[in-house]
């Protein structure tokens, strides 16, 4: 091979490799990206059936119900306009409490209950994810205008 051919081979190998890597990464991205929905958008039916998503809002006061002696908990997430019942059967994070914001990952079942497989802990009790804050503020504003 002449130096020129050698260089061209190298460039071709690199181009093919980078393209393959890019395509695979984009596919992984498309399949695994998770969108955020608040209870209002869930109520509006914006979630595709079976779609895994992030649900955010506030844990309604007095809604937390445990099945004693087991891990199962049920609670309601609200944005002050709509409510979504949530079921979770794992260890809850330290900062999870009624009247505080939370984000959960999971899917809706056929009865409209959100089956969470992960409930997110925030490190700082003053900290609320920006999208949850926005949902709650929009909800409060709407509720106030009724």
């Amino acid at each position, binding site marked *: *091979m002449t*130096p020129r051919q*050698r260089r061209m*081979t*190298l460039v071709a190998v*690199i181009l093919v*490799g*980078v393209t*393959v*890597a*890019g395509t*695979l*990464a984009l596919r*992984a*991205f498309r*399949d*695994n*990206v*998770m*969108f*955020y929905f608040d209870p209002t958008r869930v109520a509006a039916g914006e979630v595709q059936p079976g779609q895994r998503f*992030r649900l955010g809002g506030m844990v309604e006061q007095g809604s937390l119900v*445990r099945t*004693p*002696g*087991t*891990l199962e908990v049920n609670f309601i997430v609200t944005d002050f306009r709509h409510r979504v019942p949530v079921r979770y*059967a*794992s*260890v*809850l994070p*330290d*900062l999870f409490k009624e009247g505080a914001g939370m984000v959960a990952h999971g899917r809706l079942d056929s009865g409209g209950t959100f089956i969470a497989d992960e409930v*997110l*802990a*925030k*490190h*700082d*009790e003053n*900290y609320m*994810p*920006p*999208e949850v804050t926005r949902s709650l503020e929009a909800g409060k504003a709407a509720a106030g205008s009724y």
Partner: protein
Amino acid sequence: MLVELGHFALVLAMMMCAAQACFGLAGPALGKPHWQSVTFSAVAGQLLFVGLAATALIHAFISNDFSVLYVASNSNSALPTFYRVAAFWGAHEGSLLLWICVLCLWTVAVALRAHRLPPAFASRVLGVMGLVSFGFMLFTLATSNPFQRLVPGALDGRDLNPLLQDFALAVHPPILYAGYVGFTVGFAFACATLIEGRRGQEWARWMRPWTILSWAFLSCGIALGSWWAYYELGWGGYWFWDAVENASFMPWLLATALIHSLAVTDKRGLFKSWTLLLAIGTFSLSLLGTFLVRSGVLVSVHSFAADPARGVFILAFLVIVIGGALTLFAWRAPKLVSNAGFALLSRESMLLFNNILLVVATAVVFGGTLAPLIAETLGLGTLSVGPPYFAPSFMIPVLPLLTLLGLGIHARWRRGGLLHARQSLLIAAGAALLLAAAIGMGAYSSRSVLAWVGASLGLWLILSSLIDPIDRLRRKLSLPAAIMGMSIAHIGLGVFVLGVTLVETTTVERDVALRAGQGAQLAGYTFTYQGGESIAGPNYTGFRGHVLVTRGSKTVARLTPEKRSYWATGSVMTEAGISAGWNRDLFAALGEDVGAGAWSLRLQYRPLIRFIWFGALIMAIGGITTLFDRRYAPAVAPTTDTGTDVAAQRATP
């Protein structure tokens, strides 16, 4: 009073940096060598005043001066003294001051070694570093002053975030920053090279040790952070692909590429402009990381600070620094020509592949980290990207990278070929595949293909890295520090890969609700919850559970997970109970009292998890070993090469 002095000292330090930048850059450009000596005085002044400012803040913390807002927000009189000092960098303002301190120390280190560089070059390097320091000090003083008073003063402080009251996290930020900030040195060298339009390649040798040292610090810092997340966040994860973690991982990946590309430039004078671009890129990613972490633009479990004004300032700084450096690059880089050729299987092309794959890996992390931000800006909805994207995508460039690595370290410079090591390589590859099967299926009874592939790659790296040192020892040849360091670092990577593979494929985890006396089975172990009692610490109260781990009739470990409630903030913290072993960790964390006398517990069995952090540590040790190589030993002070323009000016006074 001392606090105001500290504030004032920081202002003076900023002035020193301005002087350092002006005289450092203008001196050589205008041909005034005596200006360059002012640069060194400015560095000394910077050290003095930054030291004063830091002392003032530490003093405020130790003496519980709650009339300082930052102290009142991040400390408490009940906080143990060690954590009061660590609270210095517990939040945004202090972290920035820490950044400034670390950059100051790097500047002093460069100044102390400047006599080995041509004076004009050293002066420019210090000038560029002065500019960066100036920017950060301006940022601190304008938007995040740690010396701000609280009027009236508070009776007691709000306390340090309990998560940060921990040894690993107390030492994690300084070490991480030592790495992060150290890339400023490489950046300054790159800028000085471009400003001078140097035609040679000697700058690569000057830059190498600084870059490797920063990289070693960053490796340790990231590993410490991961270790902390594992035992302190309470739930046993060691890496979350969280925005803040990625912010430190991206510069690490690019710096790894830079170290390898520097080797080619130093040895063969190739890839010059690419190496400079990587140096600029690595520093840019460090700055971008600061922007991501400090502006709070990304939703992150680590984000403590969120303030748009700060974000705008850092973004502007980012644009000026990166934009300026890239303009300089576009202007000067075409002058850097290298016309040496190399063969397809040579060390050069292997390192080229290394660079491309590492850059692709960086791009994968970069894309995933910034995608939520971009989608939000374009109005495509709020989305999040997590491990399901990062883990498989990251493997795409990394699997070929690890495979080629074992071959690449045996390829020869220029002419290439691997025939000389063919036999050893075949033995290493065969042994790796068999051993991996034995470990995966035998020791951990795993049938996962991924486990086998990953373990094979890890062992392949270790065995392949051993070939050269063993060969040299057998033939009674010398083993230069550079080669020894390289082998150690690659062995460390192999250990790391082995650890990650087994943790990812064979971890067993269960969440259970147990009454006292009840047990749960996990990976052949029985975890029995034996009840617990109330405890009281210096600044918290809590509950301690007792979990007995048995295997057959043998007691393996007694775990004592805790649930703590810190008085000052009222926040609840989980302290995991961990039995660490070289080959496996047993882990129990308390959830909460779920009624009917039962507690929820998270139980885990994680094989080889220690390999992850030890691997990173070995990598860092390998990097530091290379610094003792003869090529970096003090050479005769350069007398002839004083920089082209200075020499020209001197000739015509």
